[in-house]
């Protein structure tokens, strides 16, 4: 395994490059989700459930930037960053939310329930953690096919209560499969705080149950998530079996767009508000002189423009025709 700490020429440039990428994708994710949650949903242009990753952008962005081409991603409902990085254009995600034909599911499903096998993204189903054993199976296939790839399996801390989660981690560890299990511990599952979800203090405390290396990561630090995912993926890629990363973060919004989250005590909003991953990265970029303030401002403006255009384009996408209702339940139908 190569270590990342040794100094070498170009490292500063690479770091700056990485930070700028993280910043761009986090800003883009935030902007797209803001439009969804605070505009399109309220305008009635999105009629179904809306779950966003506000405050958690560093996790999907920092980790998905590690993924190599053949790696398989199984994002959760708060991991839009993974789609953007993988090359799904923002307008198609917006079309997905609005139930348009250009959404990844052509209107058959909503929000983050989408995938694209050409991009190696597997679509979740609602039932939490159901994708965890599926990710293990994808990893098994990668090994079977002789590929040096890994699967990234994303979920929230609440999802670790489900039987599917346990079976998936157990199966992956017994089979020594190349999976990185990525938990966003945002401390709530809907209204349920983590301490009503599990008796252990950390999701990482569950690693030993599978003899799996487990690590706690600052989930609001994109670069830390990137580094940890790199380590974990290298471990898995090297044939050493799965790895569990717990990214501590906070859900800076309700469970879904209709939830005002009155059950969250004010002090948590205050504390975690100061940990905004985008602002933190911006501060770091300025402090390390990776980017100038104007550059960052320009990037923000670019993101807004991009999303303006994406919304427009998504709105131009038609709703599906009712005549397509019966298509595609089976292969030849």
């Amino acid at each position, binding site marked *: 395994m190569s270590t990342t700490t040794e100094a070498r020429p170009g490292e500063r440039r690479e770091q700056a490059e990485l930070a700028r990428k993280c910043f761009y994708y986090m800003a883009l994710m935030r902007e797209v989700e803001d439009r969804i949650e605070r505009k399109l949903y309220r305008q009635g242009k999105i*009629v*179904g*459930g809306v779950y966003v990753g506000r405050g958690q952008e560093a996790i999907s962005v920092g980790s998905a930037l590690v993924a190599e081409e053949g790696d398989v991603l199984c994002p959760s409902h708060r991991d839009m960053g993974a789609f953007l990085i993988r090359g799904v254009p923002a307008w198609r995600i917006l079309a997905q939310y609005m*139930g*348009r034909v250009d959404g990844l*599911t052509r*209107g*058959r*499903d*909503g929000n983050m*329930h989408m995938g694209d096998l050409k991009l190696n993204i597997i679509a979740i*189903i*609602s*039932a*939490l953690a159901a994708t965890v054993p599926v990710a293990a199976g994808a990893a098994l296939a990668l090994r079977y096919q002789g590929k040096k790839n890994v699967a990234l399996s994303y979920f929230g801390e*609440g*999802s670790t*209560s*489900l*039987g*599917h989660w346990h079976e998936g981690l157990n199966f992956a560890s017994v089979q020594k499969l190349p999976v990185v299990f990525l938990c966003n511990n945002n401390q709530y*599952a*809907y*209204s*349920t705080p983590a301490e*009503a*979800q*599990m008796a252990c203090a950390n999701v990482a405390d569950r690693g030993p149950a599978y003899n799996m290396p487990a690590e706690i990561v600052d989930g609001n630090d994109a670069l830390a998530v990137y580094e940890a995912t790199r380590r974990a993926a290298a471990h898995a890629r090297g044939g050493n079996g799965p790895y569990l990363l717990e990214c501590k973060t906070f859900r800076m919004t309700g469970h879904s767009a209709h939830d005002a989250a009155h*059950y969250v005590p004010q002090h948590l909003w205050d504390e975690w508000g100061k940990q905004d991953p985008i602002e933190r990265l911006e501060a770091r970029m300025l402090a390390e002189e990776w980017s100038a303030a104007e550059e960052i401002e320009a990037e923000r403006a670019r993101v807004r423009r991009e999303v303006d255009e994406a919304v427009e384009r998504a709105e131009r996408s038609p*709703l*599906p*025709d*009712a005549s*397509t*209702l*019966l298509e595609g*339940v089976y292969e030849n139908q």
Partner: protein
Amino acid sequence: MPTTYLEAIREGLWEEMERDPGVFLLGEDIGVYGGAFKVTAGFYEHFGEKRVVDTPISEAAIVGAAIGASLMGLRPVAEMQFADFITCAFDQIVNFAAKCRYRWGAAVPIVVRAPSGGGVHGGPFHSQNPEMWFVRTPGLKVVAPATAYDAKGLMKAAIRDNDPVIFFEHKGLYRRIKENLPEGDYAVPIGKARIAREGRDLSIVTYGAMVWTALEAAERLAEEGASVEVVDLRTLLPLDRETICASVRKTSKVLLLHEDTRTGGMAGELAASITESVFEDLDGPIVRVTAPDTPVPYSPPLEEAFLPNAAKVIEKARWLWKY
């Protein structure tokens, strides 16, 4: 003051909890938050955490724990946040709860609440009507009220019943329908259908939200001169075959209607029951109006095309009436 369907369920739960200290609730986000649909809002404050148990996201443990508690004499009411997630508790329901009494005489008086049904833009995993997984499982009882009156009365009956009851409450009805409920305690017997509208020419047998669709169709068909009877099953298991057959004997024509998908749906069981019992009374084919055999799509034009509605019922009913 008229009571909504949702409020009726609340009242049923509340009154039973007041009546019997052994009744308690468990489920995800049902306590402080009051449940995803706010059915249990205020319960935690009134009854306390002992009787309103917020659980981890563990449908199998929720139903399993309900079974265990019921074996010890309590009366648990378990909430699935959406009926769709009942698949995660499937083994507990169909293998544990359903078979205890037959195997070793142990009563499992649990109620599993399952908010089901489409028309709420919930997409494939928040809209299903999974009643048939349970109707085919001996040992369970399955109810699906259509009215606020029945929702309350069947909730009470379900809680008092000494067998496991799957309680399908239609999300689309929660706030859409209301009616004045009688003062005081009443229960609606499990296993008894209801004639929602009397008629002579044709019977529509249905349940849940589709009862309203059937009534709307019947009303409009009446303008054309057709006298349509609407049978609201209320309970799907055990099935009130007598009421169904009596209606068919009277009208000689029957249309079966459900929101669930077609193949393997409730209409099959109804058609078989009818043809084996009152075949000679039939004056025309048994007609089905159901959702087609697809997952429930999310986008409004697709979901609308997917769901049965009065127009589709009228078209088929008219054809059958003239048959």
